[in-house]
């Protein structure tokens, strides 16, 4: 009976959503969006503060925002304050996981139910290096290619998960991760305050933005994305460590 009510409620909600989508003048039809009506067009043209004309990859220099990846330019420049809040949410959830699962230093890591042999240990170390380098690459090219601090940081954390799963002796230095996380988060705020001091508002880009498409371009965006990558990587690695350790049961 309860399941029937749940089914009826969910389907009613779905039907309401579908009805609100069809023939709605205020909601653009799928695929026929006019970007000129939206604020996004200014992000694409990079003309929020002034009109630089057409942006050409590899030619235009010193626009208001130098990132070739427009999503990155929104995430780390135009809406950087949003991202600061998002990083804070991730920090608080990592803190909550640590508070719930961590109990002093009496915990030991979760035992594997097999004995990893020599090949597995050495092979996972080699793969660890490759995954780590891919993560660093994704972070460094966040303003040019798809990716950036969040996926790159997750890749770094996944390389640490690989070591946990392939080696029964492995433990990360959780204190080091906590330190890295705190330092990276603080530097993000410090960069924001520098924007307030050297330019006019919090988190403003105060460095020259360079030519669109160069590796060293886009002002503070690569710096902020490296900090975000370090922070996300260390936070998720800390969460993984918290889940893979268990309290030592003292009977």
């Amino acid at each position: 009976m309860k399941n029937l009510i749940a089914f009826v409620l969910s389907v009613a909600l779905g039907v309401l959503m579908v009805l609100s989508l069809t023939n709605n003048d205020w909601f653009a039809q799928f695929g026929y969006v006019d970007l000129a009506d939206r604020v996004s067009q200014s992000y694409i043209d990079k003309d929020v503060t002034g009109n630089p004309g057409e942006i050409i990859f590899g030619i235009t220099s010193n626009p208001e925002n130098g990132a070739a990846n427009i999503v990155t330019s929104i995430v780390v420049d135009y809406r950087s304050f949003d991202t600061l809040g998002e990083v804070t949410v991730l920090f608080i959830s990592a803190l909550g996981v640590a508070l719930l699962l961590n109990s002093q230093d009496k915990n030991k890591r979760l035992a594997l139910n097999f004995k990893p042999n020599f090949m597995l240990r050495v092979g996972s170390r080699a793969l660890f290096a490759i995954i780590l380098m891919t993560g660093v690459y994704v972070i460094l090219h966040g303003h040019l290619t798809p990716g950036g601090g969040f996926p790159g940081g997750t890749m770094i954390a996944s390389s640490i998960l690989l070591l946990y799963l392939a080696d029964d002796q492995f433990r990360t230095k959780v204190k080091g991760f906590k330190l890295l996380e705190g330092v990276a988060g603080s530097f993000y705020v410090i960069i924001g305050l520098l924007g307030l001091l050297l330019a006019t508002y919090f988190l403003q880009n105060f460095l020259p933005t360079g030519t669109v498409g160069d590796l060293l371009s886009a002002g503070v965006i690569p710096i902020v994305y490296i900090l975000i990558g370090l922070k996300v990587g260390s936070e998720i690695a800390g969460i993984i460590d918290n889940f893979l350790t268990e309290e030592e049961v003292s009977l």
Partner: protein
Amino acid sequence: MIQYAAIILIVFGLYGLLSNRNIIKMIISLNIIEIGLNIFIISVGFVYDGIAPILTSTNSSSALLYVDPLPQALVLTAIVIGVGTTALGLALAKKIYSKYGTFELDEMGDNE
């Protein structure tokens, strides 16, 4: 139509959330709702014949037709927050399991 697929995912997730009494299944249902919402938000910015909003050496001009980058940026935020909330939910589930020895909400409370 991708928007209807997203709505179907949201409905599935909501039904799972309402009908299940197992904590892990409830967390999975929340994740399904989240995925559906993310697909829906992304679909709001889709433009026919639009290209991914990244300037490259082949699509080098800002005057080309791009899809809307703003929903993608918002979904990037939502994904990360989803990871954080899922981790927190799973940590709570682990604590509950270590206290009651079960994930079923109905079996909790009696056997302290």
